[in-house]
């Protein structure tokens, strides 16, 4: 037992104290933060205000447009949008919204233009020259008859790629023109708002028991968890294979086998590297939890937060368990391959079948995401080799009945027991065979004989 623990400790330290582990462990959370937080930060940086000249023969549209682009109006709109997607705003979130709306305040500076009898063409030329002279950034020419079918609003801007401002501007213009038209038809703005109020579409999924749950975001989260497990299994599986091949190549196996039982050595290796993997996964889960926790207090992320599926501690326990199941399944296969081959290059060729198996599991997880309750989902989430990837995905998409999780664990643990048994037999013979790669019939013989 002491020797087994010595092997576990040795293998654990060997993985965890490597630079690649540290980098890999830190890189993922850092990248997650970079990809989630940085774009939002960049977009929130206020651009230079756009200096805009408006040519409007009646000034009806222009005055309404200016009002629409005022900070009060902007704040009101943002609040309305937020209220539509969020049920309740906390006072804190309310304050956040107001500050972000205030940012729009100075986004547009209106430059007066005096049309005074000049033709549209003359005005356009003068505006263009002011743009070239860097006096204004953009201009808008409102057509004489805004009700005409072919009425065109000419908007030219040097900042044509500032899509956020352009979008805001277009919305404001649209609503300004609409209210001019309504006024012409003697319909009050309030009346229209009342009539054109959008319906409240309350879309939610139902789980087995008929309880409501949010489905938005589940798909992305399921995909991420499937991918994460697949990548981790592939990396750690190959790490195990590398370690086995090294011990074989350098003939360390001879010293090891003269010190401890091959079974102890192999199991110790699997457990040690498995714990290292669990450490990494734990760090990641903790980081994600912290990031989500921080995001939950920020109103800016409220719409994103809303779609993050609730993950219960039970789910995390399940993920950890299935990660371990997957780890032992594939690590045993990779260790078996490692003890058959003579070099790492040869090993990478033979790593193809287990990698394929993992990929199959990963692809099946798409079917599981689409319909977690289907018969196919049931079978692939209890099947050995596939379950380690498909079951966590299924749990996230829709919690299956508890007995199915237990059945899946049972089947997979039994498969692992068989695999470890086979691998330890191949390991104790294969590790002492030098010079040539073992053939499948040979390996079969070792399994039966040893």
């Amino acid at each position, binding site marked *: 037992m*002491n*020797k087994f623990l*010595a*092997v576990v*400790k*040795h293998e654990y*330290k*060997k993985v965890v104290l490597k630079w690649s582990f540290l980098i890999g462990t830190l890189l993922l959370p850092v990248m997650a933060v970079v990809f989630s937080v940085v774009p939002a930060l960049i977009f929130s940086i206020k651009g230079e205000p756009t200096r805009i000249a408006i040519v409007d023969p009646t000034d009806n549209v222009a005055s309404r447009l200016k009002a629409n682009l005022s900070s009060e109006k902007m704040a009101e709109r943002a609040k309305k949008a937020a209220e539509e997607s969020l049920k309740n705003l906390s006072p804190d979130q309310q304050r956040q919204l107001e500050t972000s709306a205030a940012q729009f305040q100075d986004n547009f500076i209106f430059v007066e233009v005096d049309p005074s009898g000049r033709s549209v063409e003359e005005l356009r030329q003068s505006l263009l020259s002011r743009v070239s002279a860097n006096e204004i950034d953009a201009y808008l020419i409102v057509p004489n008859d805004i009700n005409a079918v072919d009425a065109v609003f000419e908007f030219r801007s040097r900042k044509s790629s500032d899509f956020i401002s352009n979008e805001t501007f277009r919305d404001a213009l649209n609503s300004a023109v609409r209210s001019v038209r309504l006024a012409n038809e003697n319909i009050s703005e309030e009346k229209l708002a009342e009539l054109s109020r959008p319906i409240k579409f309350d879309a939610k999924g139902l789980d087995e028991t008929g309880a409501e749950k949010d489905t938005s975001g589940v798909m992305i989260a399921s995909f991420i968890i499937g991918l994460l497990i697949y990548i981790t299994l592939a990396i750690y599986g190959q790490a195990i294979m590398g370690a086995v091949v*090294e*011990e074989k190549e*350098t*003939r*360390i*196996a*001879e*010293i*090891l*086998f*003269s*010190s*401890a*039982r091959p079974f102890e050595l192999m199991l110790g290796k699997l457990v040690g590297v498995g714990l290292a993997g669990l450490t990494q996964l734990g760090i990641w889960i903790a980081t994600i939890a912290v990031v989500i926790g921080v995001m939950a207090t920020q109103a800016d992320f409220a719409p994103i937060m809303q779609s993050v599926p609730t993950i219960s501690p039970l789910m995390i326990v399940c993920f950890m368990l299935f990660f371990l199941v997957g780890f032992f399944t594939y690590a045993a296969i990779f260790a078996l391959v490692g003890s058959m081959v003579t070099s790492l290059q040869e090993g990478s060729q033979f790593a193809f079948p287990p990698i394929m198996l993992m990929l199959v599991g990963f692809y099946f997880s798409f079917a599981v995401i689409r319909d977690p309750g289907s018969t196919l989902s049931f079978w692939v989430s209890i099947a050995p080799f596939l379950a380690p990837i498909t079951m966590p995905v299924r749990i996230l998409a829709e919690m299956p009945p508890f007995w199915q999780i237990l059945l899946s664990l049972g089947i997979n643990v039994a498969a692992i027991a068989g695999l470890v048994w086979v691998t330890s037999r191949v390991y104790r013979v294969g590790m*002492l065979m*030098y010079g040539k790669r073992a053939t499948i019939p040979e390996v079969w013989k070792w399994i039966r004989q040893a």
Partner: protein
Amino acid sequence: MDDKVTLQIRTVTKKFGEFTAVEDLSFDVRAGRVFGFLGPNGAGKTTTIRMIVGITFPDTGFIELNGERISHRVQNRIGYLPEERGLYKKMAVLDQLRYFAALKGVAGKEADKRIDHWLGRMELSDWKKKKTTDLSKGMQQKIQFIATVLHEPDILILDEPFSGLDPINVEFLMDVIAEYRSAEKTIIFSTHLMSTAEKLCHDILLINKARKVVSGSLREIKESYGQNLIAFRGTGAEDILSDTSFIERIVSHADEQELHLAKGVDPQELLKKMVDTGVVISKFERTEPSLNDIFIEKVKDKE
């Protein structure tokens, strides 16, 4: 030969499928003596050693260390230096030694104390934190040797321990072996270099093609082969040397000849005859056959 028998090998046979690697092998190894385990490549040396250290187990027969069958429990009392040496490439010397010690049941402060002691003795203390890839071949060999003795084994099995070592380190290793011998430990020394075996070993076992060929103390073996061998240097002996009733075979060395006398010829008689016929003798010495000769003769016999 009153030293205690520590290792007993009895009627051991090991087969791999159709191939018999070791057949009906029996021998004893005694404490306080160096036991030379000799044989050509493929004779079954490695297979036998692997059975002694508990890597594989005999099909029939048994091996006992101090009266206890070889098992994983006994492994902690064995120190094994394999012929093919291996260290983890990217691991610090200290970490490797700690791991190998832990696998032999020595851990913690005790292990560190012993590691420091041995690294100091081998003049490798400065290399403690270095990785294997930073070490020279000879240094790696010494590290490997330290790993073999860290757990203070009762029996030391050294497979070609001198290959790749410079003369200073060979001398050093010999000293350590001598130390172990005087501490009444058991030492098995496997090699195909007969000259080294001759210098070191008290007992010899020669195996070839899975079977025992010669065994016993080096003294006895040599005596049993050394009855009729003369180292000769002189002039005017051509006639006598070509007389096959006296000389069976002559092996010429650089400045002397090795005369294999015919059966029943008394060296005394030959010397008298040489003196009588006026041969000028500068050297006439009864010698023992080298281990190499015995080895070659015995291995050839079987073919």
